[in-house]
């Protein structure tokens, strides 16, 4: 086992165009965001509210390390919590879902 093994994990990135807005003034904590599906040919599909988006799975050319800041006697340290190598990106404009 190599020292970096604990870094492989179940974390990834879901990248969305724009920002998420909550309808209520309360925080996001615990709230439902949307449904994620894959078409049979492998295209990720995300439904948020009344918006439908098609995305893409990607292996990140430049992976991300997730750093956690820790302030101790020796100054500030950042722990590498994990390395993130894959993401699903939705960069197309969402299509509105029109309910009949």
């Amino acid at each position, binding site marked *: 086992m*190599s*020292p*970096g093994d604990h*870094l492989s994990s*179940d*974390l*990834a*990135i*879901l*990248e*969305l*165009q*724009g*920002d*998420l807005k909550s309808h209520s003034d309360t*925080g*996001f*904590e*615990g*709230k*439902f*965001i*949307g*449904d*994620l*599906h*894959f*078409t*049979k040919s*492998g295209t*990720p*599909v*995300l*439904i948020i509210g*009344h918006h*439908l988006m098609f995305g893409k*799975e990607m292996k990140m050319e*430049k*992976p*991300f*390390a*997730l*750093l*956690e*800041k820790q302030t101790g006697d020796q100054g*500030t340290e*950042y722990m*590498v*919590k994990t*390395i*993130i190598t*894959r993401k*699903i*990106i939705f*960069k197309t404009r969402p299509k509105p*879902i029109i*309910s009949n």
Partner: protein
Amino acid sequence: MDENKTRDLDDVNEMLKLAKLGENDVLSTSQTVYFTSDNLNCDNFKFLELDQHLLEEIKQGQTLYIKGDDDENVVLCTKDRTYDVTGAETSNSLLLVKNMAFFDDLKDGKERALQTVTVSGVFYDYLSVTPGKPHLKKLRDLLDKSVYKGPEHEYEIKNEDLYGYDDLIKIIQASDQELESVLKQMNVVTINGKIRLLDVEYHFRALSYMLKLIEENSWNLDEIDFDETLNSLRDIIPETILKNLFDKYTTESKIVDGLQLYSYKEREICRFFAQILLYGAGKFNLEEFLQAWRESVPEGMTCDEELLHGIAIIDRKSDPPVISAFPEEELPEEINARFNKLFKAKEKWTVPEITPYIQRVATDKMDVNALLAKFARASNSQGVKFYSAKHAK
């Protein structure tokens, strides 16, 4: 919809239908995405973009160092490299998700099923890194405060101005390997664990005493005796300085009757004495300089003009030819400014002449040749390649 009710398959299927997609159009396993119920505040977390080298270092469990005072740009150092760090903003939201399944994880599923994905943070920026150079100006500034001028001057030095290697590596924006290598090039000595610049005149005096022993003892140039050097001089020069200088200027040569002997590094000695002669003098008549230089070094050492590259420039067009001090350390770090200064000081340079002046700003991606191609204009004169300013008249 009741936001507190957990979504079930019916809800998900219903939404699919609204989106005019059938259950048969998608894989049997669908995922519902929720924010974590824990605090979403991610101020304590940052994304750092990695290149191959950084990725390997982290996988091997190596420590990376983030360094920078409030007035400095932040750098990231591995054991041998320095990266410039910049904050990159994205117009997209980056959701950090836990347990998100990818296509390959789900493609073989048969039964209609639901899995939960948790978003534990939303990010709009990340730290981006580009391979850079160590930032060394601060090193000189710090060491300038505690220049060693001899034991009789030590009372002038404040304790808080003294730095050991462990102190410097924390403050200086350079990797371990880069800092070690630059300290090796600088005239520093280690006294009581503290790294000190050696005053030029004191350095000259001490080294001259050491070299004088060659003649006094009729030593051959490759038969320098360490113990004898120490014994003869420890009353006038502190032993620690002698040892430091001996380390710096000699290599092992041979063993005679079980005694390790040394020889002085000819190039280093000649270079140092050239610097001493040029130090403080504006311009020098070239012939007079070369003669004084040859006389300053121990007999048998050859003062090669090529050793002057990086410390002085020679102007053969003037009558008589002159030489002037032009130390690399005093050039600006910024590449454009550096080239401007170089071409202002001398119109045309050969590659060996200019190389020592741009080596320090070169990187793996942008080596000396690439820098010259980008920032200078090449020309040929009698089969010799010269470089001059890109936009020279």
